[in-house]
């Protein structure tokens, strides 16, 4: 099966600033991928590279098996929604749908109109007068209306109130359920990602720190709490991701692909949020170290 996104040593440099460094990814199809990381980590850059709005300065990237943005056929297969959902303020809601209809051979006008009705949007309303949540939904309708195989969403819900966020995600998931669309969704709201993502990429300071299926990742990571000890006294096969010590107690976040051996500790699993924070803390301590899952074959 063709990966939805394949990157080899992908890098992007703007003048002095390195936005992405040495990113290698292989994302299988049929997933909702969460791309998470602090602001300025490179999430937007990765998404723009994936839709062909940017050309990489080093390395390579292929999306759905082809070079991004290469021709109308490729453009038809990939939808994009930018941060803050820019729309044409003087064009009406219906005009935006017409835009989709005229610029896409595979446009599904019925779907788009149904969605607009579902959202209770007035088709003659100028898009500039819509609320933030309505704009995001309109932009999602325009992006999804051409029935793409892959949807790229750059912080789509960052500036929305909780209700609008929830509604947006519902409609997004409906599209996924309907069309088997793969999604790559960047956000710094981990709680939203936890609900919808089954594949996770953690991007910190331009590098991929963690990448893999959520189930596998959560199963492989454990937090163990024990009496104060050094990391190298832990059994072999446990990779220490993070170590914290008080004078009496040590807390380790470890990673192992085998089942956790029994030991003189209390072990618990980590939520996605904990995992992400762990890797973000680790990245702050070791800026150059990248870590990724390669066992993503389905």
């Amino acid at each position: 099966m063709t990966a939805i996104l394949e990157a080899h040593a992908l890098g992007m440099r703007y003048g002095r600033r390195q936005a992405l460094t040495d990113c290698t990814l292989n994302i299988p199809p049929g997933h909702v991928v969460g791309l998470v990381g602090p602001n300025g980590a490179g999430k937007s850059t990765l998404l723009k590279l994936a839709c062909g709005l940017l050309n990489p300065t080093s390395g390579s990237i292929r999306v759905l098996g082809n070079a991004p943005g290469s021709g109308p056929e490729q453009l038809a297969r990939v939808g994009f929604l930018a941060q803050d959902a820019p729309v044409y303020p003087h064009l009406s809601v219906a005009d935006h749908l017409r835009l989709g209809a005229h610029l896409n051979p595979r446009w599904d006008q019925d779907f788009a109109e149904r969605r607009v009705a579902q959202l209770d949007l007035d088709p003659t309303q100028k898009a500039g007068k819509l609320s933030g949540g309505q704009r995001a939904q309109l932009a999602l309708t325009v992006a999804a209306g051409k029935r793409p195989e892959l949807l790229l969403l750059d912080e789509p819900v960052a500036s929305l109130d909780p209700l609008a966020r929830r509604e947006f995600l519902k409609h997004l998931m409906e599209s996924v359920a309907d069309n088997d669309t793969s999604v790559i969704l960047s956000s710094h709201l981990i709680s939203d990602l936890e609900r919808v993502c089954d594949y996770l990429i953690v991007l910190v300071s331009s590098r991929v720190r963690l990448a893999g299926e959520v189930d596998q990742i959560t199963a492989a990571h454990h937090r163990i709490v024990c009496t104060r000890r050094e990391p190298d006294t832990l059994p072999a096969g446990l990779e220490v991701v993070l170590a914290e010590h008080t004078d009496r107690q040590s807390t380790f976040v470890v990673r192992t692909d085998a089942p956790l051996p029994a030991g003189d500790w209390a072990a618990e699993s980590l939520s996605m949020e904990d995992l992400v924070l762990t890797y973000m803390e680790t990245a702050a301590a070791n800026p150059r170290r990248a870590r990724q899952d390669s066992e993503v074959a389905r």
Partner: protein
Amino acid sequence: MIEFHLDPRSGVAPYLQIVQQVRQALLLGLLSEGDQLPTVKQVVARVAINPNTVLKAYRDLEREGLVAAKPGVGTFVTRTLSQASLTEHEPLRNDLAAWLKRARGAGLTEAAIEALFTSTFRATAEEER
């Protein structure tokens, strides 16, 4: 038609929460044999979760024999869970009570018992996977 809700703070994986909620509905009699579970799309439209999560939960329930999927139509309940089924496992319950008594007799605290149980439970679950 039952509705699902997701508790992100429960520490339980989303698909497991759905499985548990179906089981609970069966136990409480909210679902009976022949009832249709909401479609993946219906669930996803009410609760913003990944469709794969729902599919996984329904597959698990199918493996347990509680539901059956009819392609193109939907997923239907095939068997109910009543309180009676819990009483079927009386021998297991007695074994568990005896073990707990031995553990307390060995001087383990409540928390230690729980830790021991949880780690063993997880380890054996891993092995079976």
